[in-house]
């Protein structure tokens, strides 16, 4: 998976006693390639236990002001620390109820949702659970979603960049951005809609019902087809290419459209 957004060095607090494990190292590496700054909580001393992690985590929250926390459930192999992560979670949420926390569990949602802790979280808190075996890509994707800020720019492969705030589409060449002037109005709106879905989740399709407002006349699908064709031509011109039916924006069995990053 390629990185789609630019995270401008947002800090992520890592609270896991196994942060030196290979599994966590690959997550840290992925965070860095995606432009995050992982900050590892690692208390020092001869007998580090769950309480030390708790204290250090709360300290680091004040000190570092992270954008989110990645938290493990288990700390150490002692029974007393078995669910230490849940108590750390509770403390974090007490301090800052809006702090996004992604918590590792052993399976998708598990029994933790039943515990008193999760019940006390309240609907507004942004706490999510993920399996410890999840791929680093999945972890970063979920974390990004939890933080929730739509990125200012969305990259489509290595060719294009959409700047939602300034309503502009750029072509990227040798690291430089060139504005594509043709990309305005409805073309830009359709592309933004497709890009937003693509950013949320690579497999997400934009169904016709959500694109109908961009079409006109009796045969709305045909009119939409024309619009999409024009859009592809505009983008194609910018890179001197002709994007075919199975490239860039594709029609999925007449259900809707989907953006796929172009291959160079």
């Amino acid at each position, binding site marked *: 998976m390629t990185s789609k957004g630019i995270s401008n060095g947002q800090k992520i607090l890592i609270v896991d006693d196994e942060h030196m494990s*290979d*599994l966590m*190292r*690959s997550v840290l590496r992925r965070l860095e390639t995606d432009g995050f700054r992982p900050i590892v909580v690692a208390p020092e001393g001869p007998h580090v236990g769950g309480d030390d992690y708790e204290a250090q985590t709360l300290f680091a929250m004040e000190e570092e002001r992270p954008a989110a926390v990645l938290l493990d459930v288990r700390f150490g192999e002692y029974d007393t620390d078995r669910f230490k992560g849940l108590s750390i979670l509770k403390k974090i949420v007490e301090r800052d109820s809006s702090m996004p926390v992604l918590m590792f569990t052993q*399976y*998708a*949602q598990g029994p933790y949702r039943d515990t008193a802790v999760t019940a006390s979280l309240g609907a507004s808190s942004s706490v999510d659970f993920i399996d410890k075996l999840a791929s680093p890509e999945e972890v970063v994707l979920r974390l990004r979603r939890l933080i929730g800020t739509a990125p200012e720019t969305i990259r489509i492969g290595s060719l294009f960049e959409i700047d939602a705030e300034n309503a502009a589409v750029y072509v990227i060449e040798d690291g430089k951005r060139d504005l594509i002037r043709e990309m305005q109005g409805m073309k830009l709106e359709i592309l933004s809609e497709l890009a937003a879905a693509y950013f949320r989740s690579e*497999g997400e399709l934009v*169904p016709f019902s959500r694109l109908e407002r961009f079409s006109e006349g009796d045969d709305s699908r045909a009119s939409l087809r024309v619009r999409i064709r024009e859009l592809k031509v505009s983008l194609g011109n910018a890179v001197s290419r002709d994007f075919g039916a199975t490239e860039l924006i594709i029609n999925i069995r007449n*259900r809707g459209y989907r953006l796929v990053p172009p291959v160079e």
Partner: protein
Amino acid sequence: MNYGIDRTTAAIWIKFLNNRLLKYLRKGGAVLAAIGLVLVLLSPVIGEPISPGSLWWIEPVAYIGAGVFFLGAIAAFVSVQLASRRQGQNGGDRSWSRVTQDYFDTFAHDMGRPLRRILGKQREVRALLGETGEATPRMVTELLDEIEQQAPNFRLMIENVRVLVDLEDEHARPAVEPVDAAAVIRNIADRYLPIARERDLELVWWCEPAEFGLVYGDASALDHVVTNLVDNATKFAAEQIEIRLTRNDSHFLIRVWDDGLGIAESHLVHVFDRGWTPELSARREKQSSGLGLYIASSLSERCGGDLLVESKQSTGGDLNEHHAAFTLSLPLDNRPTAAR
């Protein structure tokens, strides 16, 4: 509280780990251990030191082989242990649900440990290989991919066993909470997208209306049922998989569709039966336990919904005229009437 393998918890395990499951676990473990051993033995032939500079993983095949052996041996050992305790079994516990959940938690964690290590090592090896930029032998890449792909299988298996435990408990009620159904589906799509891609399948999902909103139901059950359906779809699809989330006045519906060869009409009545699976070909490694759809449909019913199947198999002419589609339908609001 004691989380070790004591008599009570073991008895509870035995209650649902019937003969058959234990047998599979034992056999599977033995096979896995054998594969691991073969890998270790063959490593001087099929593997090769990739980067002579870093001595600690000179032989990834041997390393991974040892890991696989370890995992298999543990599975076999645990199943034998459990089987030997069957005699001392005494049913009828009041704290059934509590104790099993605690025990299951420990079990899942311990079973997962070797896998977490293997998976972690695999991801490190992959990253280092990417850094050196040298061509990797195809066999090594395949091995790494295989390990990565087995992780979701393991997750689903563990989760299936957990739900089986839950289903055995007649007093258990689904946990009802506000659920962002679209987010649950999106997470599943994200999890299976790399697997689908690996198998050259196109996986798409969408929801209508776009702002789907909250439903009141059991998020974990929803996640689990749909995961089983999508998992099957990635096994049987020819090229395409679709996951669609829609709603009507009273229910929300998730349809998982794939363009695979489908299910024979005479088989449709059996697909939700416990342990049912058509023994298609003896040549292929059997991958099915026939538990997934049984669990999925039982769980749907417990949540006040149902799971339906529809399939078409091609009748000669048009080869593309085949598919399988499962539709899960759950109430928009599953709270007890008094709580609304």
